[in-house]
């Protein structure tokens, strides 16, 4: 083991510890804001893993898209839904959690057995490193052209769908002026009064 291997191993161990710890924090912590920031830590350490795997471009894309967009989006979601509510405890919740933990540990045992038992066909060619951008561009515009174009259509569909799902329904103007003239209008958005479906009907 030469020096470069040692550095790689140590950085892998550090990144793996960060990632597992932060992921456990995402799942187990009770405060959801802490969970969101720890999710950012998971994304950043995942980007470090990509650098260890000779993929600088995807590491940069991971930082930009996940930390810069998805994590910020989740934080905005938390702020919009920020409601301090204590969930009603359901009885025998621990049975649920223990069963899930057992299933997850079994799945992990199964996967690790598979990983360790399979004879992987490790290629001995040297990785192309920074030429990866050129190679990815060639793939995108030759043999993966159709999925690439479909991804753009899918992003457009997701954008329109998110707007349609999340926007509020506004009342038309004439209805507003005739019925709601007496209510205080400052600092309130003209919004259709929502009728809450009672959330605990039983």
């Amino acid at each position, binding site marked *: 083991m030469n020096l470069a*291997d040692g550095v*790689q191993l140590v950085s892998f161990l550090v990144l793996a510890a960060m*990632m*597992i710890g932060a*992921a456990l924090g*995402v*799942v187990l912590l009770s405060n*959801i804001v802490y*969970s*969101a920031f720890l999710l950012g830590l*998971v994304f950043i350490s*995942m980007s470090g*893993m990509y650098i260890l*795997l000779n*993929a600088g*471009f*995807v590491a940069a894309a*991971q930082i930009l*898209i*996940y930390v810069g*967009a*998805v994590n910020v*989006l*989740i934080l*905005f*979601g*938390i702020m*919009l*839904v920020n409601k301090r*509510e204590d*969930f*009603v405890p359901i009885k025998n919740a621990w049975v649920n*959690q223990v069963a*899930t933990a057992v299933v*997850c540990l079994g*799945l992990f045992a199964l*996967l*690790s057995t598979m*990983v360790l038992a399979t004879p*992987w066909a*490790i*290629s001995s060619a040297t*990785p*192309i490193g920074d030429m*990866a951008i050129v*190679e*990815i561009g060639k*793939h995108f515009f030759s043999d993966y052209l159709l999925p690439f174009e479909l*991804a753009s259509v*899918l*992003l457009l*569909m*997701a*954008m329109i769908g*998110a707007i349609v*799902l*999340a926007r509020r329904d506004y009342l038309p103007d004439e209805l507003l002026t005739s019925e709601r003239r007496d209510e205080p209008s400052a600092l309130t958005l003209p919004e259709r009064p*929502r009728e809450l479906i009672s*959330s*605990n009907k039983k």
Partner: protein
Amino acid sequence: MQLQYFLLLAAALFCIGIYGLVTSRNAIRVLMSIELLLNSVNLNLMAFSNFLDPQGIRGQVFTVFVITIAAAEAAVGLAIVLSIYRNRDTVDMEQFNLLKW
């Protein structure tokens, strides 16, 4: 560095994600668990791309696609959570049972 280390790490992250997906009661935490799952799959793809196909790097191409899908999924998922929150006034997964019974 070996391929197996990365695969084991991805498997552990996947199991943590599954645990959070099933047990958490906050809808936004469910979305975060889905992001964990997608990231572990990405790590698998990148490890295979580096160790089994270092010249063609098709794994990186697939990872870029998965990142795209994950961004779209996060946006639509949060829109759905917001819409449900506006209608039911809660984010408790145990109470989202409109289609259940």
